[in-house]
């Protein structure tokens, strides 16, 4: 009786064990794509072990493709041309690619798995992107939820970047995050300080990287950055400038103002900084110093909801309202915006209604 029950159980168990073993062996051999060659721009060839996504493979080879989401396929920044070998376009890539890009084999490198030889094209300037080993030299509270971090470059010891560009910060594994992730932050430093990268970071509740920076990172700790990236920069014209920023969006504008001061710029510039309360305004003294140093510069902080007891004699209301009130003729102007998507969309609408050509509005949306 016992054997009639036990024998089938044993047989089924044995079959299960054999199938599991087959699966393990199959995974080892089938998912092992072996050595693959990646031909870059017909000029350089990498030999890699297949199996990972293209973005991380290139990163391991010290070729850094811009990415703000750490390879999760959510930012759409890590585009490159995959001429041969990338396989079919994935549904996760489609929302980020227009028809022309699809027709010319543009892909998101984080979504392309290296399974065979590949031929890719990347912009030549990306070869200049380097990884920097840095030491956290200073952490300064700017507001209740925003800090300024200064990193001293160790290796390489200096960096060249165009004011307005951003870097990627590597948030290491720590007890609230089991994986390394990269996040993009605009450089806020004075560009003459070639051995310093300064970032202004606002705490994101539950954010992997900002939690690391706010709760774990200490002065003296070593971290990694790579960059510089991005097209946000001042044009080489004399057009009057309208800067608009909110929150940590002040970072690239601060860097541009340092640049203007260093180059003795005579351009007229008005800087509308949107804050919810007076406590959200930081670097007020520095901005006033820029006003003294730059003959055509005016700083206009705008507070939407001054709290009770806060003495505020400056502009009140939304930054869009301040623009409508203060900006009359925009036809000759250029605008440089950095802040939340909601604010940028609203500012673009106001500026175009005021007559500004949309092609002269440059922005660094928080996306």
């Amino acid at each position, binding site marked *: 009786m016992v054997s009639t029950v036990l024998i089938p159980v044993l047989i089924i168990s044995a079959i299960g064990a054999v199938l599991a073993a087959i699966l393990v062996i199959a995974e080892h051999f089938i998912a092992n794509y072996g050595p693959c060659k990646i031909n870059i721009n017909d000029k350089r060839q990498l030999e890699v072990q297949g199996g990972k996504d293209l973005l991380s493979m290139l990163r391991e080879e010290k070729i850094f493709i811009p990415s703000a*989401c750490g390879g999760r396929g959510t930012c759409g920044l890590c585009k490159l041309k995959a001429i041969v070998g990338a396989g079919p376009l994935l549904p996760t890539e489609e929302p980020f690619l227009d028809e022309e890009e699809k027709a010319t084999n543009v892909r998101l490198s984080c979504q392309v798995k290296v399974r065979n030889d590949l031929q890719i094209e990347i912009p030549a300037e990306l070869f200049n992107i380097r990884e920097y080993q840095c030491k956290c030299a200073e952490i300064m509270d700017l507001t209740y939820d925003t800090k300024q971090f200064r990193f001293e470059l160790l290796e390489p010891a200096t960096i060249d970047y165009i004011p307005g560009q951003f870097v990627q910060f590597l948030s290491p594994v720590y007890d609230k995050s089991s994986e390394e992730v990269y996040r993009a932050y605009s450089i806020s430093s004075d560009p003459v300080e070639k051995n310093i990268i300064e970032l202004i970071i606002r705490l994101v509740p*539950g*954010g992997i990287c900002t939690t690391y920076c706010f709760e774990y990172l200490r002065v003296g700790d070593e971290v990694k950055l790579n960059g510089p990236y991005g097209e946000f920069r001042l044009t080489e014209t004399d057009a009057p400038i309208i800067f608009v920023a*909110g929150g940590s969006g002040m970072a690239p504008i601060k860097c541009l103002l340092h640049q203007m001061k260093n180059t003795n710029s005579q351009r007229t510039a008005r800087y509308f900084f949107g804050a919810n309360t007076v406590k959200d305004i930081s670097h007020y003294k520095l901005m006033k110093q820029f006003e003294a140093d730059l003959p055509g510069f005016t700083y206009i902080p705008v507070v*939407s*909801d001054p709290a009770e007891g806060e003495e505020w004699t400056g502009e009140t209301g939304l*930054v869009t309202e301040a623009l409508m009130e203060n900006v009359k003729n925009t036809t000759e102007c250029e605008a440089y915006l950095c802040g939340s998507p*909601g604010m940028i969309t609203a500012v673009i609408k106001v500026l175009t209604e005021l007559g500004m050509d949309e092609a002269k509005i440059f922005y660094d949306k*928080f*996306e």
Partner: protein
Amino acid sequence: MKESPQRRELEEVLRSSKLVAYGFMGMDTRHLSEIIDNDLAEVSRAGYTLEQLAGRMQEITDQAATRFGGWVEINENLRARVVEAKGRLVCPWPHPGRFNKRVTMVEHLKTGETISWSDLNIHMISEHGFFEGKGSAFRLEPEELFQMIF
């Protein structure tokens, strides 16, 4: 009930910190299906639907988003603000769902109680009936939620 491999894979993603710090499950040791079933039962008992909840949350978010981070009075009892950060949040379920990293904070003016949700929370409640696990950064207790927003 035995969980499918897809469900197990999803649960692994939810418990990991791949997508958000601390993961979506917090310290909750219950299976995903149990969390969803319990929360859904609580919603039903209170006489609401997930669509009603998510719809009201979206309404508050849309109203609050008009002041770029400033407080907006929703009604005589509530005020709300929306704070945006760089980047996007991705839905852990296997479909292409991406949401602005936007957090709505709601405050009850009489009791001082607060509650916060992300755009992803609204989507996960509406489409997946998922309020996150207990102890996660953005867990929403259904009862607290409907007491606050209705």
